[in-house]
């Protein structure tokens, strides 16, 4: 009996915290279907009184929203794919090969993860401006394609693969590139999905670097686009709600689909490493 009450109490507490966690999302989505008059009315209701899709409809005309959205998807996909491939191949070499200087390189990668963005961003900015790479997607892709976190995770993960497996393939005459692509890559699916989701999110929410690098509006990314939107149409809260809803919901859907792998990845990255 006591156990049952305790269990119910625990469930209630968790449920309350869950509600607090979810409320901002719910409020955002519901508000995105309200008219601006209703959003800023004195009398507030949670559900929209007059359900409207206008906020979404005007996003494109006021704001070229699809362009920003498409740019963000493109950059996030390219960077994520590059980071995954590079992390895997570096993780493979750094975990399964023995050579001089290996630990030095790996130690260095770990050390660089500690360097704050503020230390490198000023001179990187100068470098990219001097190289004439401002306002090009190369400036967004090049520095982002190596991830210390990714290499670290893949080194842990691939390091745990049995050597016998690789050795058997070598005996069969497979070269290292074939071993990497046909054995190591397919066996690292879990860590790859974890890196994929994180990396996608990081690119998706990166703000300062694209803000500094990209000048032309048709190349701008969504995260930065939200700011210009807020400034220019400062009273259009409905539009802002609609825009944030669209920029959050895809990420949430991806998360809910992959949440198992996601959690496995976080736990592996932290506890194992």
């Amino acid at each position: 009996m006591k156990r049952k009450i305790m269990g119910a109490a625990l469930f209630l507490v968790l449920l309350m915290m869950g509600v607090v966690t979810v409320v901002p999302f719910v409020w955002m989505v519901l508000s995105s279907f309200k008219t601006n008059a209703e959003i800023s009315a004195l009398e507030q209701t949670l559900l929209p009184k007059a359900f409207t899709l206008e906020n979404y409809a005007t996003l494109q005309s006021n704001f070229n929203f699809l362009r920003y959205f498409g740019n963000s998807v493109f950059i996030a996909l390219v960077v994520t794919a590059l980071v995954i491939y590079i992390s895997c191949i570096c993780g493979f070499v750094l975990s399964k090969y023995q050579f001089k200087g290996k630990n030095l390189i790996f130690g260095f990668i770990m050390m660089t993860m500690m360097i704050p963005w503020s230390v490198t961003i000023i001179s990187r900015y100068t470098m990219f401006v001097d190289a004439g790479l401002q306002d090009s997607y190369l400036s967004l892709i090049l520095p982002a394609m190596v991830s210390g976190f990714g290499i670290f995770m893949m080194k842990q993960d691939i390091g745990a693969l049995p050597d016998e497996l690789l050795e058997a393939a070598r005996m069969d005459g497979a070269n290292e590139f074939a071993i990497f692509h046909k054995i190591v890559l397919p066996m690292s699916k879990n860590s790859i999905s974890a890196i994929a989701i994180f990396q996608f999110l990081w690119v998706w929410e990166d703000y300062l670097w694209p803000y500094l690098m990209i000048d032309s509006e048709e190349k701008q990314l969504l995260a930065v686009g939200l700011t210009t939107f807020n400034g220019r149409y400062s009273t259009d809260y409905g539009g802002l709600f609609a825009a944030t809803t669209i920029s959050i919901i895809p990420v949430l859907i991806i998360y809910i689909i992959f949440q198992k792998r996601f959690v496995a990845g976080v736990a592996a990255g932290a506890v194992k490493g």
Partner: protein
Amino acid sequence: MFWKRRPLQSKSEVVLRNIVVAFLVLHMGIFLIVPVIMAFAGSFHLWNPLNGTYKWIGLDNYVRMFQYPTFWTAMINTLVFCVVVVAFRVLLGLSLAYAITSKMTTKKTFFRTVFYMPTVTPLVAVAYVWKIMYNPQFGLIDQILGVDINWLYDSAFALPAVMAMTIWKDFGYAVILFMSGLMSVPSDYYEAAHIDGANAWKTFCYITLPLLKPTMIFVVITSVISYLQAYVPVMVMTDGGPGTATFLSSYLVYDQAFVKYNFGYASAIAFFILVLTAILTVISFTVTGEKPEKRRKRA
């Protein structure tokens, strides 16, 4: 086993190794080492890219930094921010993880998924939503609490408001980490404690907590390091204001570098943050007497 140490390396192995090493060295050299050196050199210069100034001024930037009141405001704000947010993160993370992993809780996956949701959402968008939530006329927070506070424009409430948003955004990460820490505690430890007649609280204090120390250290260190670098919530929600009430260390670098274009001065502050980060990491490891590598191997 004889193949553990293979003296003979196939040609493709050498090729692949060389490609990877060359690529890593080149990439790190260009995008990390060179910028760090440039920033370090720049911190001793009067450096303004707009009018092309690059003049040696020795330690002036560092001297000026310590005399600049906003620098101290930003540092104190960052300290308060770190202490409060990290404390909440550990407290909420640990207690919720404990509640979820408890035998009495059903729907574990559901709660885990819900609590982690804010962590996976893009910070810029979330910061906008919270900014509107703090609106004094129609924001959700004043409505629910039944108060009339202009959170982001009142210097007493602006920083706590940004902190509350950050706690909401980040506690789920700690929940996941503590959950995996809790689940890795061998169940015979609990059985032994049970046989010895320990109650739940004693078991938690003497068995669970000590075993969670590595997770705790990891959460605290990674949190502090990431908050030393936080700028997005400030940029979106307050622009550092009102006045300098919500200036955080990294926002100050942004402000000096890309608003005022004092590149040299901003570099000096950035190096101060770097040193702080390094010291904090070393202190946390020595205080707990554990090296990260050791912890990794054990876990």
